[in-house]
């Protein structure tokens, strides 16, 4: 019986692991490897400085490979996980035209009973758009194996422990802080904070994964339908200030017993209101060029 062999090859860099360490130690190790002189060729340099560095990938890959090792032998021996270090296989890297790592190629069986139904035997490249976690990787690789890879996320004991302690701690402190929790003003504060943060586009930055500030150091993102993380805090702050000065006018000022103090406060808060509002409008005009 002739099993066709399908090869799953992972090509990743040893430099990856080094890069995770601090730059100093990285230099030390490189220097040691080169007898005191750091040798960089153009390729190593490109790879070292590639913007797609994702050095945390290796543990995921190993986890999936280990999961595969647990399947029954007759299936296990049909698929192989392999890795290729850049140092050991520069020619292969060149042959495949790889500019960055890690890269996962799936080589389906080209002969025998395991040839995929579509008949495509050319290697498939794994798409990292779902991130570098082991779960999605196992899921997508399972499409190419006769039985799914029995990968399960390891139980995150630390997280459960944290949650349990948190709950317990909360229950204990609840007794002491219950006057605070039962105060309507606590809730009011929470409510308003949530509303302000939400209306400042917090969910936008969460969902789109916007950076806190732009690459060029600009904290205001170009474009009307776009924003950076810092805009959330700034805009929420502006809103909060405006809301607060308004509330001052409505809730605090009328209870002042001294007319002079009251007048001062009214002018003060009105002034704050007008100025901050102007700042907000000019910020909006930065975002929306054609604004009125």
């Amino acid at each position, binding site marked *: 019986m002739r099993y066709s062999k399908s090869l799953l090859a992972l090509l990743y860099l040893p430099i990856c692991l080094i890069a995770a360490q601090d730059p100093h130690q990285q230099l030390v190790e490189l220097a040691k490897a080169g007898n005191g002189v750091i040798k960089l060729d153009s390729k190593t340099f490109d790879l070292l400085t590639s913007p797609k560095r994702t050095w945390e990938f290796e543990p995921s890959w190993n986890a999936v490979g280990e999961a595969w090792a647990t399947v029954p032998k007759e299936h296990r021996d049909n698929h192989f996980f392999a890795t290729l270090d850049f140092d050991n296989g520069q020619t292969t890297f060149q042959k495949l035209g790889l500019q960055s790592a890690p890269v996962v190629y799936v080589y389906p069986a080209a002969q025998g009973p395991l040839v995929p139904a579509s008949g495509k035997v050319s290697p498939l490249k794994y798409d990292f758009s779902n991130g570098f976690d082991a779960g999605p990787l196992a899921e997508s690789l399972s499409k190419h194996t006769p039985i799914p890879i029995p990968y399960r996320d390891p139980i995150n004991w630390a997280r459960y422990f944290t949650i349990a302690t948190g709950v317990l701690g909360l229950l204990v402190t609840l007794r002491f802080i219950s006057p605070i929790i039962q105060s309507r003003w606590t809730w009011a504060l929470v409510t308003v904070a949530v509303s302000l943060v939400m209306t400042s*586009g917090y969910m936008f930055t969460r969902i789109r994964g916007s950076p806190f500030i732009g690459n060029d150091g600009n904290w205001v993102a170009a474009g009307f339908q*776009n*924003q950076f993380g810092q805009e*959330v805090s700034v805009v929420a702050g502006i809103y909060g200030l405006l809301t607060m000065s308004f509330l001052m006018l409505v809730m605090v000022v009328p209870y002042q017993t001294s007319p002079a103090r009251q007048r001062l406060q009214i002018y003060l808060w009105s002034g704050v209101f007008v100025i901050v509002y102007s700042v907000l409008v000019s910020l*909006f005009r930065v975002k929306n060029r054609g604004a009125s």
Partner: protein
Amino acid sequence: MPTAYPLPTNLSPATVANTASLIRIVALALISGAAIASRLFAVINFESIIHEFDPWFNYRATRVLASKGFYEFWNWFDPTAWYPLGRVVGGTLYPGLMATSGVIYNLLHAINLPVDIRNICVLLAPGFSALTAWATYMFTKEMKDASAGLLAAAFIGIVPGYISRSVAGSYDNEAIAIFLLMITFYCWIKALKQGSALFGTVAAVFYFYMVAAWGGYAFITNMIPLHALVLILMGRFSSRLYVAYSSWYAIGTLASMQVPFVGFQPVKTSEHMAALGVFGLLQIVAFAQLVRSHVSSHQFQKLLATGVISIGILGAMAFVLLTYKGWIAPWTGRFYSLWDTGYAKKYIPIIASVSEHQPTAWPSFFMDLQFLVFLFPAGVILCFRELRDEHLFVIIYAVVASYFAGVMVRLMLTLTPVVCVASAVALSTLLDTFVDPTEPEVVDDTRSESGASTISAPGTNGAAPSPTTPATTSKKAKKAAAAAAEHPTTLSDILASSSTKTAKPKGIYGLDTRIMVVLNTICMLAFFVSHCTWVTSSAYSSPSVVLASSNPDGSQHIIDDFREAYYWLRQNTPEDAVVMSWWDYGYQIAGMADRPTLVDNNTWNNTHIATVGKAMSSSEEVAYPILRKHDVSYILVIFGGLIGYSGDDINKFLWMVRIAQGVWPDEVQEPSFFTPQGEYKVDDNASPAMRNSLMYKMSYYRFVDLFGGAQAMDRVRQQQVPKVGPTLDYLDEAFTSENWIVRIYEVKKEDSLGRDLKSANAFAQGKKRKRSKPTTRRRAIL
């Protein structure tokens, strides 16, 4: 009591009340007028036309309803949609909108006003916006008072967040849904306040209308139970709550199940379980109250503890079991994606691909709500100050809706009403405080000139009209105040009564501060109005069927490519010619070109959409069998590269690829459409998969010729298109609109000689055929 400015004294309380109500009525009428008028920009700037995409379907359905009657509409099977699957329209839509238009249409025709159904559809949304203003007025009146109500009505009348979905021609479910939302909430609050089964029933009736009109009814379905739940948790259970909720839930749920599209969902899906659970909880709590009134408190404590805990555990277990067994459907993807925001992109790219399902950046909030966006937290705080049952509703609504609006641009619509209400409460409190002529007594002795300058006698009631004299003694004022306390009928008494609740003296001293704050407020309001008008006229009134641009001299230039192309289809193709396009244009093709389409904006069948995505993203040879199998005669693509129309198909192309990849991961792969550097390019660096894809070829076919040898430039992508344009073997260019926005291709028939069309085409162009290897019939015997 001193006042900051003189008040008329010779007014009877009846006059005051009558004038106030007259002013209210006039103000409401003017607000309605303003609400309607500002939505007519679209008609004035362009024409009376149905806008965008979904409204075209609604319009088409309404025409069927108007011409064939309700039963035919109910049983309408549309064979031209989702060809060849067809669509059972009657059972897969919310008929409220069409039924409303149908009723109005028949009513007008019954009184011999032969109004065109199109005009009813176009003007339905503005008309209902006036009703929304009224409903918001009523709702806010329950929260604070009539003046806050008027402010709220004015806000909702012109706020862009609502106008964006309700301009004339925007004939969508939301057009009537916001009115129904507000009126249902109003009835609920009313029922809760009064413990009235009648108002609960009215709320249920409007809830039914809402269910029939908009899928967003789930918002009400969860808002009201949430409110009830919070009330119970706060220990505010009352028989009023019990009556209101039970009557609303029982009648509302039964009624909502009569809508064919909803059917048994209210008892089967997770979205509706909260309402059911709270209903059950209310019964338990009510029962517990009943028992408490009959047994001693010690026994009761035990009974209550065991009872509530055991029932709670049983209920939760039952729910888990039912969900596990599949009797209760889990959250639908759309609903689920509101919580797990990464869910849609990963598992249902169709939903994630819709632009109105994108998260909202802060400029959108500010654009749609302007100064209301920071005023409404103040209103929420003010609600906390009093914290009546109905104020809790506003608070919950504000938090929930601001989260939803942050997750999806589209849900800005549900946030807008509560923002208007809360802002109106805040602003009217401000105005109450600063317009109130009453001046508090100055506690310290250094009484300023305010006392001397106080002119009017606040307490001059109708019974004792006294001429207003410049010098009124405080004694007289005191006396009058005492009289006013007995008969709180005059203007100032009404004003004063609001400030009597607090023990502390409250009020504003002086006139200048009043004038300053009021002027400031008026300026803000004026700015708000101008902002709303500008946003409405410039951003939200475009029909998106017709585009407008400016000529160098400033005059308006209308780009009418869509209708040009659709009418070309209508007049030049056989009636049963199937048109394939990306799903965005399905409803428009059905509505304007009247041709069967493969997919349309009702995105329920992922596989069918993925089929179109696959055809668009594959090479001609792969796509052709798909096209033939689906009887496609024409393919329509939108191309903006010539005039810079950014909403074109090349920009949407990655979604087609992604959706196709979801179904055929082996055949379509997203990374292959990027350059090795990971860029999305259409120029010389474009990847082979990109350049061979049907979409690319159809978009750029003969595009280079247009530049007559000069470098062709795609003005949307700002990239230079390859010098040698793509060639087409399986398609013929049939029509290209004036500005090249719409390009229509005809799918060639199979070659009559049985060749593949590529070689047939090569032969027709006189190219030498490569001598094909003849098939051998004899095989070597080994």
